[in-house]
């Protein structure tokens, strides 16, 4: 376990920092709740309409809530200098990035997924649709975190990185959004079988899991040259 122990220590460190006051996990869920509850004010309290567009609303809210926490992914480490230590360590930067992203997803993505059924009930979704949107978010949010990590690495060290991060990352999130919403709507009943978009969504997440750490590590190294 000698090779894994630095990563285990990193995991524990990230977990503690993320759980601490000011961590983005709980704030992301609150932001998610506010987004979901503000939409009926704009659209009107029409439960039939809300149930129809509910899966899409939940996906967009989850996308924005994920983005909100991402600019802190490397920023805190950059502020206190620990990013330089991580860059100089013998452990490959790619695996460090992988651990950081996994912890970030566990602390921000998973709470969103857990909160989704509650918010889905508020939007008047049928049980089948609630299940579909929850499962599709569980499968799709890792892709959002990993794609977003590329933007976080590119904008590390900027004062106003958050807005730029959104501009860089949102166009790249289009495929995840399309297949996530398709899977959620297919679960609620439709002409397309659930597994077709869902399998592609899982594939997108797995591809992002495999490829994004390399792009993130490249971006972090380039920022230090």
């Amino acid at each position, binding site marked *: 376990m000698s090779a894994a122990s630095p990563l285990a220590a990193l995991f524990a460190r990230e977990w503690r920092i993320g759980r601490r006051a000011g961590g983005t996990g709980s704030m992301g869920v609150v932001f998610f709740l506010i987004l979901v509850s503000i939409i009926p004010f704009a659209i009107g309290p029409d439960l039939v309409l809300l149930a129809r567009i509910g899966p899409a609303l939940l996906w967009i809210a989850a996308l924005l809530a994920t983005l909100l926490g991402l600019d802190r992914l490397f920023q805190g480490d950059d502020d206190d200098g620990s990013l330089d230590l991580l860059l100089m360590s013998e452990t490959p930067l790619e695996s460090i990035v992988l651990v950081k992203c996994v912890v970030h997803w566990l602390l921000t993505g998973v709470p969103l997924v857990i909160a989704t059924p509650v918010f889905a009930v508020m939007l008047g979704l049928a049980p089948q649709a609630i299940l579909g949107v929850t499962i599709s978010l569980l499968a799709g949010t890792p892709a959002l975190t990993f794609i977003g990590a590329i933007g976080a690495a*590119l904008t590390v060290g900027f004062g106003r990185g958050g807005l730029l991060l959104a501009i*860089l990352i949102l166009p790249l999130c*289009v*495929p995840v959004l399309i297949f996530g919403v*398709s899977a959620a709507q297919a679960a609620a009943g439709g002409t397309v079988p659930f597994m077709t978009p869902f399998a592609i969504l899982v594939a997108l997440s797995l591809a992002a899991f495999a490829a994004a750490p390399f792009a993130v590590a490249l971006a972090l190294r*380039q920022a230090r040259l």
Partner: protein
Amino acid sequence: MWNIANPTNFLKLTSWLVPVSAVLTALLLGIGLYLSFIAPPDYQQGETVKIMYLHVPAAWMSMFIYGVMCLAALGTLVWRHPLADAAQKSAAPLGAGFTFICLATGSLWGKPMWGTWWVWDARLTSVLVLFLIYLGLVALWQAIEDPGRAARAAAVLTLVGAVNIPIIKFSVDWWNTLHQSASVFRLGGPAISPSLLWPLLIMAVAFTFLFLTLHLMAIRNEIYRRRLRRLSILAASARETDLSGVMMEPVR
């Protein structure tokens, strides 16, 4: 080849290449526009088919420029060449411009043909996302002050985008088959006849030369901008060392 990569040699070469390419562009655009004006109107679309002569070459260029940017991004990351940085930086706004021409002319063509300015058709949507990626790259260039760092960050984003563009294209196509579209995208008539095809090909070559001219000019400007930046930094640091010593006469 590597001689051209030297910025000074590049400036020397382009000092005559830019005018030559500009004249070629003007000639080709003149011929192309004349041919597209005298080209027969389409039997279904009438004269509106002539929008195609701007629309289709612009669409081709929007993708071609992304390819050029990917090559330049490789040059930045692999060889760390400043000329590749300049090529990357000056291609991004041009790419956004050609993509915008493609979207705008497409919209103007769509109004008489489909009865609407915009449809969330697979093709339109994926070009729109490409436009957004270009704008993101321009924003990234503007956000980072250090040109070397900006170039490397933009190179990473360009290559990530290169992986993503086929995925976006494919996903949007898939999305479109779920929601049926209002109209079918078709190119004037069942098969394009030579009388329509020739002006189109000439316009495509003209647009390529237009891009080449503008790109070379923008790279020249970027090289001069970097030299100016370097010189002003040197001047500022020289002044600083003067001030750190005994009171010196502020010369220069």
